[in-house]
């Protein structure tokens, strides 16, 4: 188990190192970026940048300084706004994004698994078709279109939910639903196909031959095994929720890290883009690692020593 986690951690750090290096050198190459010296910067910002990056020093010193700063959880200053650092943005925005993301995650997993199981248990009946039509539509509509439509119909036209902003729990529902639509559809499809596969297994026939009822077979033997792929999808799902939040937060005017990020993209605030990208990468890789460990604990067949299916 420890060896497995150690190995995963090593890969994670290598991936992280790769993305930090990539951001650093891409930023150096960016025309009009902080390192190009093309534009005259306001003196205060120039001072901040100089302090953090040491603009006049050779690139390898800058690079190692940057790595050290990140290791100390310091993502550097803004390139556009004086007195603002990436850490400020993360501290103010991430709690909001995290809440929204968790709410969406709960909706997606709950609804998706439910729909998938209903569809699989009623294979080739109307419940199956209805769930799958919903799922195909859910993955066919880009999130910003879905979110705008939901906002237009449910908030502007019908007034069921507040249109935008982040004030009460009611304000969180519509954005969370919009953020969860795609993942819900995906999880529903995944659960359905995995459930159908499990139901065709010999051990389901054994369970039936024992005289267990349909309910007992479904709950004790089928669902648990069918949910294993869903658990392993939680890693990519968190990535989807994070990137989805960029769009959703922008549309609903939510002051999360996603909107800060999108704003920094339109402003070409290079150092913020850089810092937030690195921060998101750390969060994502940590999430994936956690999911892997959780999976290893749930599935008894995985002997975590080599991370391979035991036989």
């Amino acid at each position, binding site marked *: 188990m420890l060896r497995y986690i150690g190995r995963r951690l090593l890969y994670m750090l290598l991936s992280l190192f790769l993305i930090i290096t990539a951001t650093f050198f891409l930023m150096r190459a960016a025309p009009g970026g902080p390192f190009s010296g093309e534009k005259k910067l306001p003196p205060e910002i120039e001072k901040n940048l100089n302090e953090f990056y040491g603009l006049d020093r050779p690139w390898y010193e800058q690079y190692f300084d940057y790595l050290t700063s990140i290791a100390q959880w310091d993502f550097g200053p803004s390139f556009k706004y004086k007195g603002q650092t990436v850490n400020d943005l993360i501290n103010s925005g991430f709690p909001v994004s995290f809440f929204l993301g968790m709410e969406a995650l709960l909706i997606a997993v709950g609804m998706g698994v439910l729909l998938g199981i209903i569809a699989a248990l009623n294979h080739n009946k109307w419940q199956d078709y209805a769930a799958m039509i919903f799922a195909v539509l859910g993955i066919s509509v880009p999130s910003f279109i879905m979110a705008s439509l939901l906002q237009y119909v449910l908030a502007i036209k019908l007034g069921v939910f507040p249109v935008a902003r982040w004030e009460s729990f009611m304000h969180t529902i519509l954005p969370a639903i919009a953020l969860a639509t795609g993942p819900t559809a995906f999880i529903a499809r995944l659960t359905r196909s995995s459930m159908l596969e499990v139901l065709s*297994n*010999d*051990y389901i*026939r*054994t*369970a*039936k*031959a*024992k*005289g*267990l*009822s*349909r309910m*007992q077979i479904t709950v*004790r*033997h089928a669902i*648990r*095994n069918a949910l*294993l792929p869903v658990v392993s999808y939680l890693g990519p799902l968190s990535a989807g929720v994070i990137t989805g939040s960029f769009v959703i937060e922008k549309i609903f005017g939510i002051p999360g890290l996603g909107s800060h990020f999108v704003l920094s993209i339109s402003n070409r605030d290079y150092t913020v883009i850089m810092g937030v990208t690195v921060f998101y990468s750390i969060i994502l890789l940590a999430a994936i690692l956690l999911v892997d460990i959780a999976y290893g604990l749930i*599935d*008894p*067949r995985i002997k975590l020593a080599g991370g391979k299916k*035991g*036989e």
Partner: protein
Amino acid sequence: MEKLLEVKNLEVSFQTYGGEVQAVRGVSFHVNKGETLAIVGESGSGKSVTSQTIMRLIPMPPGKIKNGQILFNGEDLVKKTDKEMEQIRGKDIGMIFQDPMTSLNPTMKVGKQIMEVLIKHQNMSPAQAKERAIELLKLVGIPMPEKRVNQYPHEFSGGMRQRAMIAVALASNPKLLIADEPTTALDVTIQAQILELMKDLQKKMGTSIIFITHDLGVVANMADRVAVMYAGKIVEMGTVDEIFYDPRHPYTWGLLASMPSLDSDDKKELAAIPGSPPDLTNPPKGDAFAPRNPYAMRIDFEQEPPLFKISDTHYAATWLLHPDAPKVEPPEAVKKRLRKLSSNYDKPIIVKESE
């Protein structure tokens, strides 16, 4: 002897893309209390479908029981609802499947899988059930059952898993055990051990067994009676002695001739039955075996053979037993073992006209 199970004129079909497959086409047999009936045949002969229909494990649709009765203790299982069947499956009838690797739930402890049956059918508390599960594991010859009961199937070897499956099937002392090719997926040495275990347990518990196999060699030391199936029908049925020493159907001859035996010192090749079973979407006219039968007569292609009774216990469906049929010699390998059986009638009697 008392009949535990009687299957009468069972017909089972499957609806597929290619049309209706008539997997079982009018099968009748019975199993007495405490005896072992072997059902033998090639893959696709309908033997597994028959056994799973008794347990009502055939998914419907696409499967359908078109006709017939399955009388178990005098009650017709065909007419039972799913809820009623749940009280019979695992309790009165236990079942073992071919592949022990896939027949156990990989994410549930072996002990738990045995306990499920006990809790469901014997109203045991989890603690009692666990104790009993350990006893059962011991009974089926698994060493260190206290430790094994908490392990997962992947920690068991193939033979061990089949032993665990037997423990599951026998957990609530069923009256009938259906074993669907229980040794096919196992090594030869393990096969013998599992067969020994089954015989041993049968002696202890008095269970009747339906033993499905394609291997006649296994049949000889397991079964009391044998039914040979071909293309969804029973073509010959009799006691082990009758099937091995006085077979009458050319398909049974073929099966016996293709069976290797240690005592045959001649270097002759094993005879294979040419061809493959017919497509049961459109069962052929006449005798389904005719196209592969070197003894086929013209009538075989025209009309289905009736069932002939050779003794009280021996039946065969072949035109060769008709008084007008020419006398033919079975293949050498079969002829060598033929014996005169005293229980035979003077002449085969037609018991069932063909339609």
